[in-house]
């Protein structure tokens, strides 16, 4: 969703609208657990255009996966990268302007859609 610049007038007086402060783009790592090294999976959220990049950073034979939740009481939704070490997948989301997203990245097995929850990073909130 594109940011908007609005000029409105209303009962409270002249309303000048401006682009909201973008969420500071955030980066996340998975954590070390049995069978996975620290930061074997990575993720990066870019508020402008709501892109979630999921990266695979370890030649371990496993996939990277993001779990995310949205402000309507929904989630976790899953975003995978099964492309192997050194790859990054751009997931272009459609989020409401100004809304929040909470996400974390984990190691998983794409074939059986199994998220290794013990590898999930703490997670972070960002904003569209």
């Amino acid at each position, binding site marked *: 969703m594109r940011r908007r610049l*609005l000029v409105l007038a209303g009962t*409270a007086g002249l309303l000048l*609208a401006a682009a909201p402060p973008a969420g500071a783009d955030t980066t996340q790592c998975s954590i070390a657990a049995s069978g996975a090294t620290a930061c074997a999976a990575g993720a990066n959220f870019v508020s402008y255009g709501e892109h979630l990049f999921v990266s695979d950073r370890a030649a371990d034979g496993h996939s990277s996966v993001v779990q995310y939740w949205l402000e309507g*009481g*929904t*989630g976790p939704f899953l975003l995978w990268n099964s492309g192997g070490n050194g790859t990054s997948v751009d997931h272009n989301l459609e989020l*409401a*302007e100004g809304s929040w997203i*909470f996400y974390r990245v984990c190691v998983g097995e794409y074939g059986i859609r199994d998220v290794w929850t013990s590898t999930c990073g703490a997670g972070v909130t960002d904003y569209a």
Partner: protein
Amino acid sequence: MPSNVNRRIFLLGGLAVAGTAAIPAAASAQRGAGTRAIRFPFELGVASGDPTPDGFVLWTRLAPAPLTPDGKGGMPNTDLPVQWQVATDAAFTSIAASGTVTARAAEAHSVHVEPAGLAAGREYFYRFQADGHLSPVGRTRTAPTAAASQLRFAVASCQHFEEGWYHAHRGIAADRPDLVLFLGDYMYENVSGATEKVRGYVLTGESDTLAEYRHRYAQYRTDPDLRAAHAAAPWLVVFDDHELENNWNSTNQAAARKQAAFQAFWENMPLRAAQRPSGSAIGLHRRVQWGSLARFHMLDTRQHRAVQAPAGSCTVMRDPARTITGAAQEQWLLQGFDQHPSTWDFLGQQVFFAQRDADAARNTCTDHSNDAWDGYAASRDRIAAGWVQRGVPNMVVLTGDVHRHWAADLRRDYYDFTGPVIGSELVTTSVTSGGRGGGAPPTATWRANNPHIKYVQDQRGYVRVTATATQLTAEFMVVTPSVVSPTASLAVDRRFVIRAGTPGLQPA
């Protein structure tokens, strides 16, 4: 984000948002713009509760990032002033009360405001402002002082977040009742693990610390239908077991865990300062008077109860030394029965009150629930005798816990099928807990052995009650096709009436 505002951020001109004293006239929730200390902090909505003839309690909790794992909701470790307003109209052109309160980091930036001096028996609207952001508008009302033509309220319980969508809350919000009673299991502390889930927890382990309880309440409040139901009417809330741990009692919880659970409950509910916990204790039982029409006795059957009886032990279940309310609460309740200020008396409480005995044999208890009033039969007998002997005119017990709708008549002796009816019990099913439902109904033999039980239904929903000076109507609302469907409808599954002065449920 509030549903009544576009997902845009407005920069308001002038004093309206620049200062901290005034709240702009526009009624819709709005995000403050520019460089602010915090983002829109009203993601958990607003709520009100416990009305009196001249006031109520208003609640919000600041949490711009509700799912932050530390339970702080994305707030800094500093206190923040919050402005509040009460108006007689939704546009806030007629302000009846206003002020500023401090949202303290030590209380998860929750605020509990108790405006007083308002007019009795009327509707009000309220909102908050923090750091230039405007909250959604809530609707509430004061209690009447005298006769009211009718009282409409909803009864709900048991809303496991993972097991379904909150269609029941959507229905409650649409009803715009005078009151909502929530009778426990607002939040489930246990590990994620339902066999069929429509959504999942962020923190999947069992909640047993203050941070984890706070986080789980926040995740529940991310549901827009739950927020809408809170914003639609004042609530009367009590907890049951899952706000702390499954089937807990007065003997089996560490003080530290009780303190954490009670603190989080207080922080997340529209409760008055009188209910603020002190260490590992909370004074939850209280009365709410609704003019000459109704009186609610809100009970705590968890905090002071004796340990559950061994399964099947009639001797222990009937031991008069055991209690489900604790001696002090029992005396408080019985003393309250000495006065009869209203047509209807409601016990708002947690667990099944009427007897359920599959074989109707007085000498066996293997079929009795040791966690419900059946497991504390002497306690039940004392309270039932208390309202009968003191002449309480029309008693109705309101119950949650069991994830099914039930309607029952109450007797002093349930083995005497022809004995007098002394009141009725309306048991609300769960909002979501139990998921699809559809369990087998009781057998014909079971029904024959429990003739006081008039209705059972294993579907999700809530109970809608309308009380007048002459009659009470109870509508058992159900969600169809089920709460695991993102779209569903609500319908009346069964309707009963109780006529004032004539105890007992009548089909309607």
